[in-house]
């Protein structure tokens, strides 16, 4: 553990990622207390530039405060990113572990399913899913989880498959350990590092996907997210750059921070890659 922290923090990039991400989490948590009136309240003239009185980041096409919108948008991004990843992890780890450990027809089936999801254009499928389920926060989360769990299952299955044949796991079997004990005490601790790395990256890509859906008008109509802020101000981009630039930068910073963290975790958790 100490080794892990030392390696993780010895890289400036993971530290930067952690600081940015922590800041965004704090903003998201504090938003309802700082901006009690909510993101949809009109506070002034439309398209006021940043620095106008009381408007640090200007106002949008409807005259709403961009700062408030950005703060509330962080809530949606993080909520969707984290919950959809957790759902995908739940399904993917369970199926991947069972398939990788026991093999057989279940493994064959799972491999076919994950291959299927790799080959079909999952964003188009996601559009269909969300459109058919009616756009809402929950349909976005369900949709993203449904198209991303095979990715987790694949990683978990691969780890379990290779660890299963390692000699220390075979030794555990000869020592009379049951399957559950072997999975929990022998395989899982060794399989977790890549899973952790993949999940940190998945949160980032889920945030990107959510913003893309909202941009296309497939987000929850009752919530303001970074993607819908960009989509809503497309027509104003020519005259008021801040309406599109700022939410985009917010998305980029969040995803970048998560990828930095993932990279740092990868280095710290994977001794083979340390060079």
């Amino acid at each position, binding site marked *: 553990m100490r080794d892990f922290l030392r390696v993780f923090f010895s890289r400036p990039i993971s530290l930067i990622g952690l600081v940015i991400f922590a800041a965004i989490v704090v903003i998201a948590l504090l938003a309802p207390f700082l901006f009690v009136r909510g993101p949809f309240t009109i506070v002034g003239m439309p398209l006021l530039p940043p620095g106008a009185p009381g408007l640090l980041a200007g106002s949008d096409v409807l005259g709403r405060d961009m700062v408030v919108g950005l703060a509330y948008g962080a809530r949606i991004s993080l909520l969707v990113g984290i919950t959809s990843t957790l759902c995908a992890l739940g399904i993917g780890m369970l199926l991947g572990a069972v398939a990788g450990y026991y093999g057989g027809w279940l493994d064959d089936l799972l491999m*076919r399913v994950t*291959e*299927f999801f*790799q*080959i*079909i*254009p*999952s*964003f*188009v*499928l996601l*559009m*269909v*899913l969300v*459109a*058919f*389920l*009616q756009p809402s926060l929950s349909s976005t989360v369900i949709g993203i989880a449904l198209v991303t769990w095979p990715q987790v299952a694949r990683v978990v299955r691969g780890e379990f498959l290779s660890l299963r044949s390692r000699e220390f796991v075979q030794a555990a079997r000869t020592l009379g350990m049951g399957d559950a004990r072997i999975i929990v005490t022998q395989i899982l601790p060794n399989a977790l590092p890549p899973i952790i790395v993949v999940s940190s990256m998945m949160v*980032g890509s889920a945030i*990107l996907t959510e*913003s*893309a859906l909202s*941009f*296309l*008008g*497939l987000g929850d109509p009752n919530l303001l997210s970074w*993607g819908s802020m*960009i989509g809503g101000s*497309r027509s104003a*981009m*020519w005259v008021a*750059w801040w309406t*599109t*630039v700022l*939410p*985009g930068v917010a*998305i*980029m*910073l969040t*995803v*970048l921070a998560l*990828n*930095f963290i993932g*990279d740092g975790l990868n280095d710290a958790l994977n001794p083979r890659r340390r060079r």
Partner: protein
Amino acid sequence: MNRLSYIGARLVKTVLITVAVVLLSFFLIRLAPGDTATVMAGQAGFADEAFMKSLRAEYGLDQPVPVQLWKYLTAVAQGDLGMSFVRRQPVLDVILERLPNTMLLNAFALLVAIGGGVLFGMFAARRPGSAGDASVTVLSMLFYAVPQFWLGMMAMLVFSVWLGWLPPFGIETMGADYTGLARIADIAVHMILPGVTLALYFMASYARLTRTAMIEVADQDFVKTARAKGISEGQVAHRHILRNALIPLVTFAGLQAAILVGGSVLVENVFSWPGVGTLAYEAVTTRDNPLLLGIFIVTAVLVSLFNLATDIAYSIADPRVELGR
């Protein structure tokens, strides 16, 4: 003989994926609230029981699910993807009309991505840990983190609005009526912004993958053998390192195609490129469910065909294919 059986297996896989896509679509239809009849009735503006009933009978919605499934499967197999609610045209015709534009854009983006990515990756792998390597890594991380549609808007802002170098919208200049070479040049100029925007994310992936593969292969024993033979460094790099490092890229191109199509939906919308992506957006906004589903089926089948092609290319590039994977 084994390469043939490999290709045969991939062929079967492609067919199975297509069938699975159609099956999935059939169940997606049932996911949407209300059936075709309610939607049709809603659009017609009135909904009395008798009319609904006749509509249901007309579309076979009153029959048991397995019968409906069988009808759906046979219809799709014959290229019947249903009628677009809004356009009152067969879905397939609407899609086929837009498809060439999308394929053009995607092919261009793929070429730019692979070409650029491999070059940047090779450059970075030449001196791992150097400033050049670090900047390629940082840039690729940046392009991973940027939403593609936003990147497109920013590119438009800079190169069209501020600098005025490139046209922001469409596939060709409206009303110019160019023909021949002039038209091709016009389309090419229009393609630069959306194409490069679409390519950048994948270029980043390719650069990272090439870099890793090159460094990994360079550490292999056979590269040491090549040096021990006293052949030139250029030959070592070309015949031994690059040739092995490029093999995973072939498979990767297939896997990326699915993501490329997703990105294309967004980028086409930003640049009003008249392809399947903008069509999908129109289908979403007009709630034209059969059209949206048709787009999913067509793009899925095309991507799996492209994967078949990359699998075949892989089987030619790597003689070890006969060992089975």
